[in-house]
């Protein structure tokens, strides 16, 4: 168990390092950064000036090592646009994105697991089909469009909830629903197949042969085993949602990490872009690591190995 976790941590660290290299190289090699920063009207001299000012004239390896050395001490440099350090910007915006992601995950879990369980128990009935329809629709709905539709219906027409901003909890309801629905179909389907598989298993027959109540058979014996893979998926989905929150934040004008990244991208504010990409990747890595550990903790066959 200890060795298993240690090995996973080493892999996670090297993946993070690789991603930092890739994102750095991609940004620096796919275009002329200095020209992008200077803008289309800049003269050749101005571009060269910027290249020197931002240190973009040095060999790329040196630039990367400098950046990495800073990143290891949580120093991602200064924003080209804002008058502050990248770390301050990120710390400032992070809570909004984390709140949004956490709420969205909570919604997705609270909807998908019960729905998947019911669909499996009532297999091939109208409940099952309705759940399947719900999943198929969720998979096909573009999240930005779903978000806009929510705004039109609930914020504008019914006026139940605010359409934009991040003042209080009401601001998070619609964006969390929009983001959560995106993660629901996959988790619902996994719960359903997991439950179907487990309900067919021998140990469920044993449990029923003991005369246990239906609730105890389903919740104690079946669900526990069926949700183990769903936990791992939930962590992965949260990672995806943090990365994809740029869309929802833009639709609902939430000033989170995604919005920061999007603004930075449109303003060629590369230190910010790089840092956000790396941080979201780190979140994903840590989440999948936690999922593995949670998996091991939930499944005694792994835990006691």
């Amino acid at each position, binding site marked *: 168990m200890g060795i298993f976790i240690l090995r996973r941590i080493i892999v996670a660290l090297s993946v993070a390092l690789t991603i930092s290299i890739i994102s750095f190289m991609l940004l620096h090699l796919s275009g002329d950064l200095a020209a992008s920063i200077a803008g289309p009207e800049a003269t050749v001299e101005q571009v060269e000036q910027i290249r020197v000012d931002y240190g973009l004239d040095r060999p790329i390896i040196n630039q990367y090592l400098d950046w990495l050395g800073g990143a290891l001490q949580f120093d991602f440099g200064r924003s080209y646009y804002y008058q502050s350090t990248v770390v301050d910007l990120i710390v400032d915006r992070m809570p909004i994105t984390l709140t949004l992601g956490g709420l969205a995950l909570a919604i997705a879990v609270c909807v998908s697991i019960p729905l998947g369980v019911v669909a499996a128990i009532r297999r091939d009935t109208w409940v099952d089909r309705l759940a399947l329809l719900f999943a198929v629709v969720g998979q096909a709905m573009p999240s930005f469009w779903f978000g806009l539709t929510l705004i039109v219906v609930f914020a504008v027409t019914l006026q139940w909830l605010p359409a934009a901003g991040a003042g209080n909890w009401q601001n998070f309801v619609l964006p969390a629903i929009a983001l959560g629905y995106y993660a629901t179909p996959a988790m619902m389907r996994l719960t359903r197949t997991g439950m179907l598989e487990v309900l067919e*298993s*021998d*140990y469920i*027959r*044993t*449990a*029923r*042969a*003991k*005369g*246990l*109540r239906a609730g*105890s058979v389903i919740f*104690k*014996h079946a669900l*526990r*085993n069926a949700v183990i893979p769903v936990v791992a998926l939930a962590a992965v989905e949260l990672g995806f949602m943090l990365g994809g929150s740029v869309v929802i934040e833009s639709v609902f004008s939430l000033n989170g990490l995604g919005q920061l990244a999007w603004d930075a991208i449109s303003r060629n504010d590369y230190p910010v872009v790089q840092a956000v990409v790396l941080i979201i990747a780190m979140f994903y890595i840590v989440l999948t690591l936690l999922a593995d550990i949670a998996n091991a903790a*939930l*499944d*005694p*066959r792994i835990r*006691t190995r």
Partner: protein
Amino acid sequence: MSLLEVKDLRVDLPVEAGMLHAVRGIDFSVDRGEMLCLVGESGCGKSMTSLALMGLLPRRARLTAGRLDFDGTDLTAASERQRSHLRGRRIAMIFQEPMTALNPAYTLGNQLCEAYLRHKLGNRRAARARAIHLLERVGISAAAERLNQYPHQLSGGLRQRVMIAMALMCEPDLIIADEPTTALDVTIQAQILRLLRELQQEFGTAVIFITHDLGVVARIADRVAVMYAGEVIEAAPTAALYANPSHPYTRGLLSCIPAPGKTPPGSRLQAIPGVVPSLVGHVEGCAFRNRCPQAQMTCEQTPPMQALPDDHRARCHFADRLAPAVPQAEMSS
């Protein structure tokens, strides 16, 4: 009065091709403290019979019975609630696959105590004490520590012992053991069989032992019912059945067992030619006639159960007329 009385039990399963008649009107009874063996090859309906007795048939299966009485309770009329009070408490079951019959997510102690607590036989401490006592009784050492272990930490033989202990937790009147030794090594098989027999005599529990292995039957059973294609085709006290097998199928099964000292070395192992008929749709006549060496025109009609001496019954038109024709039966007689 018998503990369990089964008359004309039928189980039908809808499948793609039509209706599968898995169990086609079987009769048997089990007395208190008696061990009845249900013998037959796979697909003969013996597992469906055991699930029907437990009330654990697949939801789409349909059960009808002329009589299905357990200790004075009519099981066909019992509600699911009443049946769940019988399950585990008065009728327990041991399954074939010890490797998958235990929930991997819970400790043995948890799973052992579950039925005891569910049927309100005592508190948690009493349940644990009984679990430890039974684990020791089924031959598991360091029983108290075992309670905190998970199923995957045990070998198949040990798990089957745990399953037996689990079945005994509530001191049931009847245990249904569905091929409990099939998945085990031969040496372990013998140990488990001996254990089951001992416990059965010690606790006075009735046991329905389901197996495909006639060799096992001779060692443990009081009475035997041989099943073929969803029917009981022969039933008798064990000694009577072995002494005078009266259905051609039973004789065929017996001749398949090589007997040390009786089967000459180098002689061919016997096999029954042909395959079991499909039980989908309407089945008419003797189901064994396509494989039977003595089949005649009469066999197109469904044979009645014929009563023979010594509480012996066989479902063959010629049960009382045909002399034993199988070589091995000749040798043993």
